[in-house]
């Protein structure tokens, strides 16, 4: 695991040992408060998804900001185990749980934590039912419905109703409603995103009505709202919006929702300046995870991060920078997709007012299983 060298509380952010994943709590708090405020008078409540930062301490800041449904979302059973053990007692697992071992672990966790799971397949429902029964617990179950992404989920309409009936009749399971895992509204302007949200979620609302008309109450309809929270949270029939990018943001998401700013950045050190036009930093792809896009260099006009090999990041420099960015200089990189960067670290260096306040464990890192 990551082995940071101790530095005392109060250390200036720029003096931190590098590479370091630094979270600015001032920006994170502003993001959290702004996001949670949207849900003050909306019919839908917020369920923070903690899989993006994997950090219980940041999760508790989110829950304290109010207007939530009281629960959180995570991706895997492993993550649910971590957050179930760090003070979160209502957890939705958004990934599918299909292996016997994972279902057993989930049911064990359900002894002490309210667990909701999503399904899109009848066999999976039978298996969950069997293990829930033998564990003596009840799992809340949402039917995952595909809103058009073509990934997991049943098609809206009859297929959703059919699965809902199977859950309703399965011992150990409680049919709770519908679930949409797709991120909607990433492209185009706000209006286009809003239209797309309405268009994508209409079949989900219709499915809800279909199920209710068949005599089954639908308590919950949970949809992703990372980019379209303001539209999705106001659609009648949607009870919960889950979202997780907003506390820390990243380059990609701040282009789509610029009212929130990146609060987690990677501090790196220049280790080489071999020719005028190039500097090399100590953060390569292992320290940044640029799988979906390159991190963006912040605060050095005329310099650009252009290549990342395993251990090195390459900065291309305009001529006037030949005497700057010499070995030892520090630079800030804004991750393109922060979720992937967080996955490479075990600690956030939490700073407030540009001073270190602590090393915050990324406790659920790597709990893919």
């Amino acid at each position, binding site marked *: *695991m*990551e*082995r*940071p*060298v101790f530095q005392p509380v109060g250390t200036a952010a720029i003096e931190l*040992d*590098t*590479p*370091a994943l630094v979270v600015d709590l001032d920006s994170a708090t502003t993001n959290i408060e702004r996001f949670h405020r949207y849900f003050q008078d909306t019919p839908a409540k917020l369920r923070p998804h903690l899989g993006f930062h994997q950090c219980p301490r940041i999760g508790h800041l989110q829950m304290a900001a109010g207007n939530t449904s009281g629960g959180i979302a995570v*991706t895997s059973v*492993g993550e649910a185990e971590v957050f179930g053990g760090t003070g979160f007692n209502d957890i939705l697992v958004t*990934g*599918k749980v*299909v*292996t016997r071992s*994972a279902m057993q672990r989930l049911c064990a966790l359900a002894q002490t934590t309210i667990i909701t799971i999503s399904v*899109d*397949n009848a*066999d*999976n429902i039978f298996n969950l039912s069997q293990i829930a029964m033998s564990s003596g617990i009840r799992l809340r179950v949402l039917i995952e419905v595909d809103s058009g992404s*073509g*990934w*997991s*989920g*049943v098609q809206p309409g009859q297929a959703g109703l059919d699965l809902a009936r199977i859950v309703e009749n399965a011992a150990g399971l409680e049919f709770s409603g519908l679930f949409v895992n797709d991120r909607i509204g990433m492209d185009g302007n706000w209006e286009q995103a809003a239209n797309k949200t309405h268009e994508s979620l209409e079949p989900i609302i219709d499915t809800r009505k279909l199920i209710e008309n068949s005599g089954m109450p639908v308590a919950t309809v949970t949809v992703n709202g990372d980019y379209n929270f303001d539209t999705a949270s106001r659609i009648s029939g949607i009870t919960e919006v889950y979202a997780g990018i907003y506390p820390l943001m990243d380059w990609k998401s701040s282009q789509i929702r610029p009212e929130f700013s990146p609060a987690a950045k990677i501090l790196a050190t*220049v*280790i*080489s300046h*071999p*020719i005028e036009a*190039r500097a*090399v930093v*100590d*953060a390569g*792809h*292992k*320290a940044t*995870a*640029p*799988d*979906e896009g390159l991190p963006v260099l912040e605060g050095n006009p005329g310099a650009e991060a252009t290549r990342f*090999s*395993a*251990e*090195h990041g*390459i900065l291309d420099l305009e001529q006037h920078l030949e005497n700057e960015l010499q*070995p*030892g200089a520090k630079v800030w990189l804004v991750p393109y*997709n922060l*979720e*992937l960067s967080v996955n*490479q*670290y*075990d600690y956030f260096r939490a700073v407030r007012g540009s001073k270190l306040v602590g090393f915050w464990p*990324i*406790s659920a890192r*790597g*709990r*893919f*299983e």
Partner: protein
Amino acid sequence: MQNTLNPKIGTAITDLDTPCLILDMDALDHNMGVMSDYYKDKDAKLRGHSKNHKSPAIAHRQINKGGTIGGVCAAKVSEAEVMVNGGISSVFITSEIVDAGKIERLCNLAGQSQILVACENAVNAQNLSKAAMHYGVNLGVVIEVETGLTRCGIQDFDQGVDLAREISALPGLDFQGIMSHQMMEQPSSAKEDRVIEGRQLIQKILDTKSAIESEGISVNIVSTGETWSYDVAGEIPGVTEIQGGSYLVMETSYDYMTDFQFAGKILTTIISTPREGVAIGDAGIKAVGSLKGMPQVDNRRDLTVESMEANRALYRVEEGGHAKIGDQLLLIPAQQDAMVSRWDRFIGIRNEKVETVWEISARGCHN
């Protein structure tokens, strides 16, 4: 942190929680054997790079198998700390170390094991010297020569000669030699192609060696070569050490290196089959990485990874193929150290059963 309990030795692979990182022990031993057989009788020896496996257990296994210099390379000071603490007696840090705190840690290690470090400029050499003097240790210094990666390193012979002279004169430092990295422009499995390209790229560092020696400074170490050139660099007189690392775990972008077998794979489970021709698996970018492309599904010609998100992958099921929920697949990465650096342990598998569990102790050692 991946702090789940280790699987019991002997557990069937089908009973492992997924996704997980497995190591095919037969393939690993084969890959280590290729290196030990090749370097056994050569003047040049392997100094395996620990950045690829980040595990002292694997470093010792290759050293014990033979063909090595008896030490490893490391990319970062923290990685070197893990190797020294794990009992490795010689570690070459192949990156420039410029930060004062890191140089201090380097000196601390030099009190425990032989430490070599890359260097490309005089100011850095002076700082290394001051710290070594202060701590009363000796640091071995190796000049990095740029030979095609357009990254770090000195650019020409004159620079190399000047720096070698400077380092030789500095107290606390032992000028040990020179190093270079190179990438194959047009990957080819034909050894003739690799010989031509390898020799061409490696010639520059040999010329630098001659230039430094003509000043009366001896060059003990010429460290170069990688997995793709292991059998090229090893034949070139003057080359003393090869830095290979990818050969251990292997990856599809090295599939032209047919001497080596794919050893590191991600075990994943199909979790959804939403419609005809499509399946969803529980391993995504966070588990496998996607830097040089999508991973390949091992032994399943009917399945192709079409795209990956952070936490899942979408497979295309070819006509006539079949995929059902609960199916386990093995994924071979396009780039191995990007995959390994996402995991805290290898689960070693032989004959479909868990043989060993190795901690990837230096995962996350970015500093």
